[in-house]
C-alpha cells in the first residue's frame, strides 16, 4: 500500500535547479521520507541517489534523508556544497 498523497513544495538548488529548469514546484506525492521526495523528483534534478554529498532540508531546517515529510512541507534538495 503506498502512502497517502501529500502536497509537497520541492526546491532545487545550483546544478539541480539548472537541470530541472525550475527553482521550485509544488507536487502531489505519495511519500513518507525526504529520500522518497528525492527519488520521486529524480527526472527533474537528474541525480541518481542522495549520496553522502547531497543534503536535504525540510522547512528551512537541515534534515536527514530518513526524516518524515508531512503534507504542506517544503523540501529543499541541495547538491554537494562548495563554499569558500
Amino acid at each position, binding site marked *: 500500500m503506498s502512502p497517502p498523497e501529500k502536497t509537497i513544495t520541492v526546491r532545487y538548488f545550483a*546544478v539541480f535547479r539548472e537541470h530541472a529548469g525550475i527553482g521550485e514546484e509544488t507536487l502531489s506525492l505519495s511519500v513518507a521520507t525526504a529520500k522518497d521526495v528525492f527519488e520521486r523528483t529524480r527526472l527533474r534534478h537528474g*541525480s541518481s541517489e542522495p549520496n553522502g554529498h547531497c543534503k536535504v532540508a525540510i522547512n528551512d531546517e537541515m534534515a536527514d534523508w530518513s526524516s518524515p515529510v508531512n503534507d504542506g512541507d517544503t523540501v529543499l534538495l541541495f547538491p554537494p556544497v562548495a563554499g569558500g
Partner: protein
Amino acid sequence: MIEVSTDAIDAGKLKAELLHPGAGGFCSFEGWVRNENDGRSVRRLEYEAYEPLVIAEGKKVLAEARQRFPYLAARCVHRTGLLEVGDLAVWVGVASAHREEAFKACRYIIDEIKVRLPIWKKEHYTNGDSGWVNCERCAEHRQD
C-alpha cells in the same frame, strides 16, 4: 556573526568591527578567486547560496568554534554572484586574547563553512565550458 553579500566585501571595515581592548591576536582568512582549479584555467566563478540556512548553520559553526577555542569576537561574510579572478569570495576574522585561539578558531570556521553551508560554486573556464564544483556525478544526464 555571519552574512551573505552580493556586494564586494570590505575586509578593513569588517576587521575594525572586531577591535576589542582585550584582544592581543587577530587572525583572518580570505578565499580569493584563483585562475586555475584541477588543472583547468578559470576565468570567473559564480556563487549561489541559500541564505536562511547559511545564516543558521553559520551561527552554529561560530558557536562551536567559540566553545572549542574561546575567542572574543568573530565574523564571516560570504560573497554570492559572479566573481572575477582575484576577487574576495569569503572573509573570516577572529580576535582573541592570544594567537592560539585566533588561528584555531579561524581555521575551524573556514573548514566547516566549506563543507556544511549551503553554498555552491560554478566555475567558468577560459575555454567557454563551465561546471559546478563537487558535482561531477550529481546529475545522470547533464548537458555538457
